[in-house]
């Protein structure tokens, strides 16, 4: 009852503040052309009572309050306030929040916190009602229900709701498999699969989760438990989520030993996507998913802001065997996978300690002390580089910078000016067994009016020319 009272108050306010002028005119002058009736509501074989309707000019509208009541009974949270219809689903229940038409009317629909569309609405006082109520076209109501995974059909004077695609919500704030897929889709460029028939008993094609889950399965991000079971609405441990991220990034299981950490969970910790203290086997919560997705977003864009004028580089991950280590020309670059893994770990550590700062209108790259070892960095730019080994010291210009050749005082800090043409920073390792060095990673740092841009540059193994058989000298 309290909900209804709140609703009635809100609907009155709607009439005064946000109902379209056409609807107000209808209220004032065309009541005699309306006919009130009701539809019987049923979910499968279960009758849920009636829902008031008003028909005018061949269009049937249904009462929003009754619709909200049905949604609340089905586990959603629906409310109305100041011309805004808000519907929230349990975190593990999918809804379609893709943008809809914005110009159909004056009432706004917010789904899981996302404003998705404006819909036409009208207000009328059904016979016997104590006051005016809001109505929306039944076609709009059916479309909104479809966004929630409920297939609604009108059969005579019955509105039947098929809720078979609705999953059972997970307890607490736990997220399901589809949540992780949907959360990663944007940053990793996954588009929903087109409508089709579902082979999965637990994932109907009309579910809002269908398109993303099906696309993830097709793309190899996610392996369903069986051909007939998607597992889309099952809880997911963060270890499984890490595996999903690996798969989404194209990191194959056979290349695991070459990645920093050597396994999806250790990798996620090693490159800073998740805190070290997360339990890999515990089911993931919405908060944890938020952290993972936010970190992955920053990581993929190559940096994270640490202050309004400072940014830390975050080396975008990739399958390091494919992106880096297979460039040995048919020969392994490292004697063992563990050597390669250690080298890649050092690569991420180096790049992840780089900082970009903006001081006095100038962009600067701050290079961390390169610990004594076999790794070294090179910094280049068109026109050469300008660097300083201590604040206040003379700026030095050079064709390029090699940390093997630069001595930074213990109290100093190596800083490189970022010119308009940007900087390329590479990380390399001495390799006496090969009589040379090995390139392990590179980034391109650009600055400009739109801010900072960081691009990872893979060690690109191109098509090769035919063998050189003789070199005369």
């Amino acid at each position, binding site marked *: 009852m309290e909900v209804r009272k709140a609703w009635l108050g809100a609907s009155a306010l709607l009439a005064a503040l946000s109902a379209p002028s056409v609807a107000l005119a209808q209220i004032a002058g065309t009541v005699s052309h309306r006919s009130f009736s009701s539809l019987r509501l049923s979910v499968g074989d279960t009758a849920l009572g009636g829902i008031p309707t008003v028909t005018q000019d061949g269009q049937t509208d249904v009462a929003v309050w009754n619709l909200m009541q049905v949604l609340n009974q089905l586990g959603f949270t629906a409310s109305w306030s100041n011309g805004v219809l808000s519907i929230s689903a349990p975190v593990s229940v999918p809804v379609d929040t893709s943008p809809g038409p914005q110009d159909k009317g004056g009432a706004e629909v917010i789904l899981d916190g996302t404003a998705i569309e404006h819909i036409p609405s009208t207000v009328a006082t059904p016979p016997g009602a104590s006051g005016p109520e809001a109505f929306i076209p039944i076609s709009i109501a059916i479309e909104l229900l479809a966004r929630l995974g409920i297939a609604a059909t009108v059969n005579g004077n019955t509105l039947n709701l098929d809720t078979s695609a609705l999953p059972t919500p997970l307890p607490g704030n736990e997220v399901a498999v589809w949540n992780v897929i949907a959360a990663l889709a944007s940053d990793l460029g996954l588009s929903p699969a087109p409508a089709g028939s579902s082979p999965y008993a637990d994932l109907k094609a009309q579910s809002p989760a269908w398109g993303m889950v099906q696309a993830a399965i097709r793309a190899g991000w996610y392996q369903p438990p069986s051909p007939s079971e998607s597992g889309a609405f099952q809880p997911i441990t963060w270890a499984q989520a890490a595996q999903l991220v690996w798969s989404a990034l194209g990191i194959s299981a056979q290349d695991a030993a070459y990645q920093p950490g050597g396994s999806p969970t250790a990798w996620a910790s090693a490159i800073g996507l998740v805190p070290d203290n997360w339990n890999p086997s515990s089911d993931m919560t919405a908060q944890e998913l938020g952290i993972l997705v936010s970190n992955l977003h920053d990581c993929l864009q190559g940096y994270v802001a640490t202050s309004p004028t400072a940014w830390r580089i975050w080396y975008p991950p990739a399958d390091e065997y494919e992106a880096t280590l297979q460039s040995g020309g048919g020969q392994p670059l490292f004697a063992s996978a563990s050597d390669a893994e250690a080298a890649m770990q050092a690569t991420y550590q180096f790049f992840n300690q780089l900082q970009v700062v903006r001081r006095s209108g100038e962009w600067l790259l701050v290079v961390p002390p390169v610990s*004594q070892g076999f790794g070294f960095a090179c910094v280049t730019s068109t026109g050469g580089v300008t660097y300083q080994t201590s604040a206040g010291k003379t700026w030095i210009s050079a064709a390029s910078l*090699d940390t093997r050749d630069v001595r930074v005082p213990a109290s100093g800090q190596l800083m490189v000016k970022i010119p308009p043409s940007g900087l390329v920073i590479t990380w390399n390792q001495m390799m006496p067994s090969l009589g040379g060095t090995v390139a392990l990673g590179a980034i391109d740092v650009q600055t400009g009016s739109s801010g900072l841009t960081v691009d990872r540059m893979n060690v690109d193994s191109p098509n090769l020319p*035919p063998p*050189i058989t003789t070199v005369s000298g």
Partner: protein
Amino acid sequence: MDGVPDPVFEAEEAKYLGDVTSFAEWRGFSYQGKRVITLTLPRAADIVSVSVRALQDFPLGIYFPRYVEFQFEWNGKWYSAGREASAYPLSTRNVMAQTFSWSSSQGVEATAVRILVPVDVWVFLDGFDVKGSFGAKGASAAALTPVASNPDKPLGPLLPSAPNAHGIRNMLLVETGANGSLGTWSEQDFVPMLAYVTESGQITAPLFDTMLFLPYGSVPTTQAGLSAYLQDLFAPGKQLSALNEAVGYVNRVLHRPGYKEQVVLSLPYFPYGQVTFGSVNGQTLTFAGTPGDPDALSAREQAETWYLNQILSDWNEAHFSNLKLVGLYWDEEQFRETMPGEAAYVQFASQLAASHGLPLFWIPFYGASGIPDWKNLGFSAAWIQPNYVEQGAAANLARMTNAAETAAQYGMGVEVELVGISQQDQALYDSSLAQLSAYGFGTNQASHAYYDGSKLLLTSARSAGEARVAYDTTASFIAGVAIRGGS
């Protein structure tokens, strides 16, 4: 191309004639200096980006260019937007590609665009791409750095009288330390090298004024290997000792008391890599690097210092009365830009030599990396190897011309090369000497180093008939008698 065109290298790179603007095939460039790739536009355009991709394949000798320079033409003049150095060391062992690029949001107004790419050994390029618009107006190219029209004036040959020649007019390379009798020089062996000896055995005139002692390539560059080499080099009755005696003998015959033959000794080259040199001052030196010395510079410098101290100590103790040490020879025929820490290592060697009051000399092979920069690398003087006669039947006389032109461009001497004393070898040898004379590199016109394999001139001197011609021809060349011939 800004270097000297060479038919051998041209033939090599003709196998890799891919379209440099596409990614379908690589375009190969072999030696011959810097390459210039120009795109001439039908009319002025606003150029916003220029890029080209390069290949690195170390085992094949294909290296990234050290840099790519981007230039723009406006009103008939060229302007440089700067160079982009390779973002990866040339020592990189990955087989990989790298894109060199220039870009500008405002763009540069130009009628032509070109890239300059230095080629030290092999450079492979593809994907040369220029983006711009005829509709937009870019910034003035004149705001960039003007390109000097002729920055490199030829320096001319290394004159025998030049201070940095240190008195070296004709320097014979003497290899020892291996190969039995071929690597062992007696007093009698040296005499026909110090002075011309007629077929009847008469000593008539001085020949080589300088002897460069170097170890055979098979001598290990380890402490043990070099110690054995030094022991042999300073052993009584052979090598340096034999030379000292031979000079005394020739001085008496030629009535030139007090004359001292000039001697150049070698500094070994220690390449970076998995090599254990030995123990110096109780410390085992390896050239694989350590966390504190990743390029193994310190280890190689310690080994170099140890060696030089040893050889100078032996030299001083020997008190050769007829020999004068005039310099040291860097025993590596190229500047290996692709090796870690190479520039610093070579600089150290020259400074080490200088700390003992000695110049450091270099004899790079034709096309070797570093030739244009030999002075900056720290060498006092350099002689180029033409590598003409080594090509045998395929030899092209243009190589001799090119070697002379290169030497003149960079102020170098030239190595005279003899690889056999057969009739065919002699024909090539005659050609090479004739070309040197014709191009102003005859005796008194340029300082010469002489490579004769293993005692080929001595063998020739002790022969009769055709086999003696090489010795006589060499003596004639040194005497300034014109050599005619050639194939």
